[in-house]
């Protein structure tokens, strides 16, 4: 065999071996707000001599749409229940694998450096604080963080006054980034996003009565092909897994038995 042919063949074999190895690790679709915490969980899992799962972070809405369209994901973790409902309605969730395992809180953030605080209550003076600045939040029509934010502001009677100043990020992290850069004086993100960033500070916490509970459901998808998928799902919701999430500011959530 000529050396060049041999080289080509060994490359093909190496690449196909590589892709076989990749195919074994689960592909996880996860809400953007889980970026740091879920990566830490995946590291802990990999430290137990498993293949590290491949994780795709985006807005839950985008991910649900992609799963509905047949994306070959093994596990889906959504930042709200409706998007998991959407996937489940399409018959794509493996029966009995859906668990709401995390909870989060909604906060008002501002760029680090200032000192003002706000008590978030009905009619709180958000519009006055904004002036002609923008309020960064995830898209209030589709992305969970934005939907919770809109619901909370509506319940508090503030939405009509600030509606026109909302900058819609395509995920909660896009909204966070605008506040981090100081381009938006205020933003609405999850408490965990505020913890993850050194460039923002929490101005106020939204009362949990102002919006539906923020819970994160996880489920194995019926199209899952990775043999490790169920193992990783169980690890994520295990005591050990939840302990890691707690370090990133999440609250454990036990509405249904595991």
């Amino acid at each position, binding site marked *: 065999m000529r050396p060049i042919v041999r080289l080509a063949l060994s490359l093909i074999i190496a690449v196909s071996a590589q892709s076989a190895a990749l195919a074994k690790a689960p592909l996880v679709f996860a809400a953007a707000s889980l970026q740091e915490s879920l990566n830490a969980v995946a590291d802990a899992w990999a430290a137990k001599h498993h293949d590290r799962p491949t994780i795709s972070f985006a807005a839950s809405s985008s991910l649900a749409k992609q799963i509905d369209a047949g994306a070959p994901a093994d596990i889906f973790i959504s930042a709200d229940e409706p998007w998991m409902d959407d996937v489940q309605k399409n018959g794509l969730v493996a029966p009995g694998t859906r668990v709401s395992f995390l909870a989060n809180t909604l906060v008002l953030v501002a760029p680090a450096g200032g000192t003002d605080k706000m008590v978030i209550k009905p009619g709180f003076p958000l519009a006055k604080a904004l002036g002609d600045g923008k309020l960064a939040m995830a898209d209030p029509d589709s992305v969970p963080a934005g939907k919770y934010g809109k619901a909370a502001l509506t319940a508090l009677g503030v939405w009509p006054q600030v509606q026109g100043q909302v900058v*819609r990020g395509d995920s909660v992290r896009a909204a966070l980034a605008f506040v981090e850069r100081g381009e938006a004086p205020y933003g609405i993100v999850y408490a965990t996003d505020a913890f993850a960033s050194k460039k923002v500070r929490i101005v106020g916490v939204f009362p949990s009565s102002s919006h539906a509970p923020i819970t994160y459901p996880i489920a194995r998808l019926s199209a899952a092909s990775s043999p490790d998928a169920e193992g990783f799902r169980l690890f994520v919701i295990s005591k050990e897994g939840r302990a890691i999430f707690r370090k990133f500011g999440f609250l454990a959530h036990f509405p249904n038995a595991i």
Partner: protein
Amino acid sequence: MLLTPEEWGIVRLSLKVTIVAVALATPVAFGLAYLLARARFPGKVLVDALVHLPLVLPPVVTGWLLLIGFGVKGPIGGLLHDWFGLTLIFRWTGAALAAAIMALPLMVRAMRLSIEAVDRRLEGAARTLGASRRRVFFTITVPLALPGVLAGAVLGFARSIGEFGATITFVSNIPEETETLPIAIYAALQVPGSEGIVTRLAIISVVLSLGALVSSEILSRRAGAGRGQHVL
């Protein structure tokens, strides 16, 4: 086809952003095209490469550079804000700036070809007959290059109306301010049961882009008549 008032607003905003972007970019593109076609100067290769950069750079990088440069906290955006009270970030004017920058390389390419195709002997003849440089430029060079310049502008229009990556990174998505056609389509895609809106806006995008491409091609054929040159 029936659009809701909201959807018409999106189309109108897109056209406004695009027309301002093209109006902004056309003189700049023509100047650069003339420089690159006619002038010889040190660093020409670098200028050429810089002009083409937005064509090959990931649009999100262009958007991010705009964000850190032209945001209110950015060096250029800060000056514009403090001196002229001009804010680009989160405004439709910022969307127009992003679209103009993304369209510039294609416009320069088209215009440069048409300027290079101008027969310099005609300019020489006009000079020997006593015309000033200025007169030669406005009565010989510009009219002969005009179809190519228009083709470039129309191509820029087609590129601008589809601009997404740099725009959403720089000015985000604000209804009635920066929510142009592609951004509205992207946002609608995230909402269940929005196939109707997506389909209607997508059809408008296809029609506008196709119309612009066809007119650009016709104009550039005219520009390169007999020379067989095309912009695309």
